[in-house]
Structures are given as structure tokens and as C-alpha cells.
């Protein structure tokens, strides 16, 4: 059964970081990303690493969980590294054969940009590991609230996200059921080359789509009958509250940013 899937990569433990207001975490993550782009030397990265280690420890996130976020990016990482390695011009040639020339500057730059990517992913992973998707969509709705004035559908987007999250397990269950039904009638989803496997997905996707649309129609009707009429005049069951911890977290992040800027000026 597919009922035990976890939502996204949320790692549900109780920690001071988990308890932070999702809005705080979202804003501080953006600040962290800006911070990474301000780093201009490796001593700055030492600071970033120290900061990440501190946050991960406080959030009780195991090192392995954190690293899992990098895996899907390994191809991009390798490509970034190689492109920088081969195509950065420089003076100090380390290796040179045929058309390939690797310089000391290129090695430095390749390592530098790869690390930047790794830290970006680790930082944002910390946000998604410690914040449930629902809390995240709440935060997005509130933070994007002011954009409603220019007709940006903040509430609608958040509602769509919640509904999508609600229906992922339901649709997964259904996929499982349809797959078994088609397999019982001789469908083969596993063998053959890429094209024949893609073709085998058609009898799975068509019923799934049809049922998803039927569900959407049903749900719209159920929502209307429960007086749903958009975000206007709606109150919230879940209230977000800024606490003292949020200010402390903001303070720590601000100190981190200041140190980064300072390190760029002072340290080599």
C-alpha cells in the first residue's frame, strides 16, 4: 500500500527550528541565499558551513537526511564543476594536453561554484525539512498577501497547494489500483525500451486523468456547498504567531550575514 508515504521531505521532530513561524523561516532562508551570493572567498564558506551545522544541530536533522537533498542535483553539480574546470581562462596552467587546459584559477572557480550550489541546496533543504508543506503554503499566502492588491491570487495559490497535498496520497492509491487492474489484464509496465514503456503508461494515465477531473468537479461542488467563496472574508483556523524565538533566529541570521560581509572585506 502507498498510504504511508511522507509528504515532501518534511522531517517531523520537535525542535526550536521546527517551532519557528514558517514566515520567519521563509524570510530567513531567502536572507541565507542572499548571504551565499555575497560570499567571495573560502573563509566565507567556512562561516556558511558553520551556520548550516549550527541550524541542522538545533533542528535535530541527521546529517544523512540533509545530504539526501543533494542527490537529485548531482548531475547539475558535476556539469557545473566540469564546465568551470575546462572553460575558465587563467595564467597558471596545471595540466595541458590536446585541447584541454586546466588552470589553477579554473580549479578554484570550479570548487567555488560547486560549493555555492551545495550550500544553496542544503540551506533550502533545511527549510523544507523543518517546515510542513501546509505551514509553508500558509506562510506563502500571508507573505504574498499584499500582492492581492495587484490581483495576484495569493489565497487561490495556497488553496491549490493544500488541495494538491491532500490529494497526492489519494491519487497515488488510485494509480496503484489502476496499475494492478491493468496488470491483471496483461498490461506490462516494466519491460521494453523507453518508448514502449512510455506507451504502456497510456492505459494508466488516461483513467487516472479522467478520475482526477471527476474528483475535481466533486470537490468543487462540496466546497461550494460548504460556503467557500474565495479568500474574501475568510478567517483562519491555524494562526501563525511570531514569538521570541523568531526574533532570536532573525538576530542570529543577521549576525551571520554581517560576518559574511565582513569576511569578504577583511579576510583573504
Amino acid at each position, binding site marked *: 500500500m502507498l498510504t504511508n508515504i511522507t509528504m515532501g521531505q518534511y522531517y517531523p521532530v520537535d525542535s526550536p527550528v521546527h517551532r519557528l513561524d514558517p514566515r520567519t523561516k521563509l524570510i530567513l532562508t531567502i536572507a541565507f541565499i542572499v548571504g551565499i551570493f555575497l560570499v567571495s572567498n573560502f573563509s566565507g564558506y567556512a562561516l556558511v558551513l558553520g551556520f548550516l551545522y549550527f541550524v541542522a544541530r538545533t533542528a535535530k536533522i541527521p546529517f544523512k537526511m540533509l545530504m539526501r537533498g543533494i542527490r537529485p542535483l548531482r548531475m547539475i553539480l558535476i556539469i557545473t564543476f566540469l564546465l568551470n574546470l575546462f572553460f575558465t581562462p587563467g595564467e597558471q596552467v596545471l595540466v595541458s594536453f590536446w585541447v584541454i587546459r586546466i588552470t589553477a584559477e579554473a580549479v578554484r572557480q570550479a570548487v567555488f561554484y560547486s560549493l555555492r550550489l551545495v550550500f544553496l541546496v542544503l540551506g533550502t533543504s533545511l527549510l523544507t525539512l523543518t517546515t510542513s508543506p501546509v505551514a509553508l503554503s500558509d506562510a506563502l499566502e500571508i507573505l504574498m498577501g499584499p500582492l492581492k492588491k495587484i490581483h495576484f491570487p495569493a489565497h487561490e495559490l495556497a488553496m491549490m497547494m*493544500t488541495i494538491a497535498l*491532500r490529494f497526492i496520497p489519494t491519487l497515488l492509491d488510485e494509480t496503484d489500483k489502476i496499475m494492478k487492474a491493468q496488470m491483471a489484464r496483461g498490461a506490462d509496465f516494466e519491460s521494453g525500451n523507453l518508448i514502449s514503456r512510455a506507451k504502456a503508461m497510456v492505459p494508466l494515465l488516461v483513467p487516472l486523468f479522467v478520475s482526477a477531473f471527476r474528483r475535481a468537479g*466533486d470537490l468543487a461542488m462540496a466546497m461550494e456547498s*460548504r460556503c*467557500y467563496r474565495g479568500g474574501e472574508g475568510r*478567517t*483562519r483556523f491555524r494562526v501563525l504567531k511570531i514569538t521570541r524565538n523568531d526574533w532570536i533566529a532573525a538576530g542570529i541570521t543577521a549576525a551571520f550575514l554581517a560576518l559574511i560581509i565582513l569576511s569578504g572585506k577583511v579576510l583573504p
Partner: protein
Amino acid sequence: MDDRQIRISAEDVSYTYDGADSPALTRVRAEIREGEFVAVLGHNGSGKSTLAKLMNALYLPTEGRMLVCSFDTAEEASVWEVRRRAGMIFQNPDNQIVATVVKEDVAFGLENLGVPTDEMIPRVESALAAVRMSAYADAAPHMLSGGQKQRVGVAGILAMEPAILIADEATAMLDPSGRKEVLETVKNLNRHKGITVVWITHFMEEAAQADRIIVISDGRAAMEGTPREVFPQIEKMREMHLDVPRMTGLAAELREAGMPVDQSVLTVEEMVEEVKRLCPLKSGT
């Protein structure tokens, strides 16, 4: 006559779906009073679900008037008044749960009504308690059984404190034990909270438990009365492709065979009593 307030009044309501040749409902006239438990019975495609959706202003009558708590559903201004007074449970338990946590789904209607958060929390708690789902307040909906999901749906309606609960084949997709648990929950609310219930169904055994039955056939209100008045008319029911409760059928067969069994028997228990009455045991056997 009956001096209870009229909750729902269908005044010669007709409804034709867009692009359909013949109407789904034709001049249906019905009255449902405060505190009643009314079953609307009909086979597939009879128009009973259409009638339910008309009662919730999801559809508007093509002809005639539908009044819910004296609000005309056709008036745009009264649509939300109708919907907050007449809550509706649908057939598919999965497709009516919006939130990812049970208690948040129960709060969904309240959020829509603009109820302040402080007031919401006790209302959600008491609604969950009323359907005996308090233990699952923090559960994810997809982990619940069909019957439990429907009870969460009922709680979501209940939190809005409606006068009427409309169940549109709420048990059709459930297993027998889930069916029983949902019907018991709703019957309880009807009895103890005085909520008027409109129970749309094609299960005879469920209709037999109602105060009153309205039989819909081919878009018309074909019969009306208490279960004991409706079900003994076996011939008429069969003409409308409807069965009768098993015991009522058995009673009719026994009568044909020459046993003077009461025609209005509905349940196994009543049948046992009838048989005991007709063939008393001699002492010692």
C-alpha cells in the same frame, strides 16, 4: 395538522440539465418539517440526487420554487443563507475532504463563514465529539476508513450548526459496517440535536428507518408516507424498479401462502414477533 416549522418546501420544482431533452425532475412538490428524518428513495437516474442538489442551491429550479428555511434558492442573495442552513454530505467520502488534517477540514466551513478563530476551536471539538471522531482530530484523512471519512464530513457540516443535513447517497460507497456507522451517527444527530435530515438513498433497509419516505421515480414524486405505508405496496414499488425491505417481501409471500402476517413488517425483529404471535409455542416444547 402539523404545527412544526416547514424547513424545506419544493413548490412544483422542475429541473432540466443543460442540453438534456427531458427534465430530470418534473413538478416535484414536497414539504419537509423541522426535526423530521425523511428518506428520499429512488433507483439510479430517478432524479433523487438532482433533488438534493436543488435543496442546496447547487442547482436552481428551471421551473417552480425551492424554499429552504423560507429562503428562495433562486435568489442570488440567499444562496449562502441556504447553504449555511442546509449542509450536504456527498457520495464519495474522498472527494469532499479539503484539508490535510481532520480537524482543519472540519474547520473549513467555519473559515468560509468568517467565524473568529477563538470561536472555531470549541466548535470543531464539539462537532468531532458528536460524530465520535475526537481521537482522530490530528489524523490525515487518507488514513481513515470510508465510514470514518463520512463522519468527518458530517462533523464539517455540523460545526456550521445547520438546521438541515442533506445526505446525498452518503453510504453508497461504503461497506456494510461503514454504512451502519454513518446512518447511526446521523440518526443520533436527528434525535438529540433536532437536526432535520434528508436522507437520499437507494437502500431499502436505510429508508425503512426514516420517519417518512418520498419515492422519486422518473423525476416525479411518486409516493409518500411512513415506511409502513409505503413498503407494503409491493406491486407499485416493483413497477418503479424498487425493492422492498426483505422482511416486508417475506411478509407478502407469507400472506399469499395464506398466513395472516401483518403487511407492515419492516425488520427481522418485527417478523419474529409476528411469527411468535401467529404460532405461539406450546409449553414444554
